[in-house]
């Protein structure tokens, strides 16, 4: 992590992590049957969000002890930035932060992925018998 990004750790990932804890807590409360001892919370984070996974995990461990998510680990699925050219319909991955079409050079590119900030699943270490 660059010095510049480390200095910003105090800001960006904190507010996003607060959102994750809030949303995951609400999702947990909404489950039709209680989920004992959460083991993991899985989130999907697009690369264009600029989130540093290491910082997100740091805040998750800091924010969760006194919440229903206590003890859970944060699993981060990173989503690449993908685009589709509006002119030639080519699909491509954007990993150099150049948003022009590599096939025809067009600048009209629709983003297919890369801005995700989603809580996708909750997992418990214990097997819960279905239908019991």
């Amino acid at each position, binding site marked *: 992590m660059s010095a510049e990004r480390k200095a910003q750790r105090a800001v960006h990932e904190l507010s996003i992590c607060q959102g994750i804890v*809030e*949303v995951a807590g609400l999702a947990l409360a909404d489950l039709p049957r209680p989920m004992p001892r959460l083991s993991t919370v899985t989130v999907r984070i697009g690369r264009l969000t*600029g989130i540093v996974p290491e910082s997100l995990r740091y805040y998750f461990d800091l924010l969760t002890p006194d919440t229903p998510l206590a003890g859970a680990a944060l699993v981060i699925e990173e989503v690449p930035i993908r685009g589709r050219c509006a002119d030639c319909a080519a699909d491509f991955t954007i990993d150099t932060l*150049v948003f022009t079409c590599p096939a025809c050079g067009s*600048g009209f590119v629709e983003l297919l992925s890369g801005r995700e900030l989603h809580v996708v699943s*909750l997992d418990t270490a214990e097997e819960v018998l279905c239908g019991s």
Partner: protein
Amino acid sequence: MEVSVLRNVLGANDLIAAENRKEFDAHGCFVVNLMSAPGSGKTAILERTLRALDGRLRAGVIEGDVLGTLDADRLAPLGVPVVQINTDPHFGAECHLDARMIRNALCELKLDGLDLVFIENVGNLVCPAEFQVGEDRKVMVLSVAEGDDKPLKYPLMFRVSHLLLLNKIDLLGHVDFDLARFRANVARVNPGLPVIELSAKTGQGLDAWTRWLATETAAAKRRTPCGVI
């Protein structure tokens, strides 16, 4: 046992932003979310802009800062309604304005009779890009002193913005900023992004910016009375 719960982390914020937008639309207000790094000249641009508009468009301002009322104090002599938001009380000095803070500010800012609302975000090129507040347009400011490489370092901010104000162009020649290289970098990240070069200090380029505001405000007014967007 794994349970799928797919939820957007910013979903709650986006819902409040949509409510804010409805309220702005109901009053026929065009809303600009002004974003930049600290020190790019957002407040200086606002001072100069509000003077130039001189009541032709009736404007209000929501000022966001981590602490203090320095910016609101600067705008006070201009006789426009200004509401200051301090993000400090919101958990650990927030680095951006979110929709809920704007919702609260709307209790203080009377929208009746306003054509235009500027929301001056907290100085930061990262977080504000992610949070909708109910704005019509996101306008970012970059000053030439910050360097021509910034589009490649903060691509999301340059992607989400509808207009870029390149400020402090009176310093071109004094700082290491290559205008052609900058435009090429902008084109790599967001080729459709319009750029207005200006100087809040000398007033150069301000006309293009106030014309943009007048055109966009008129367009917003046309679509709001019936709620047709």
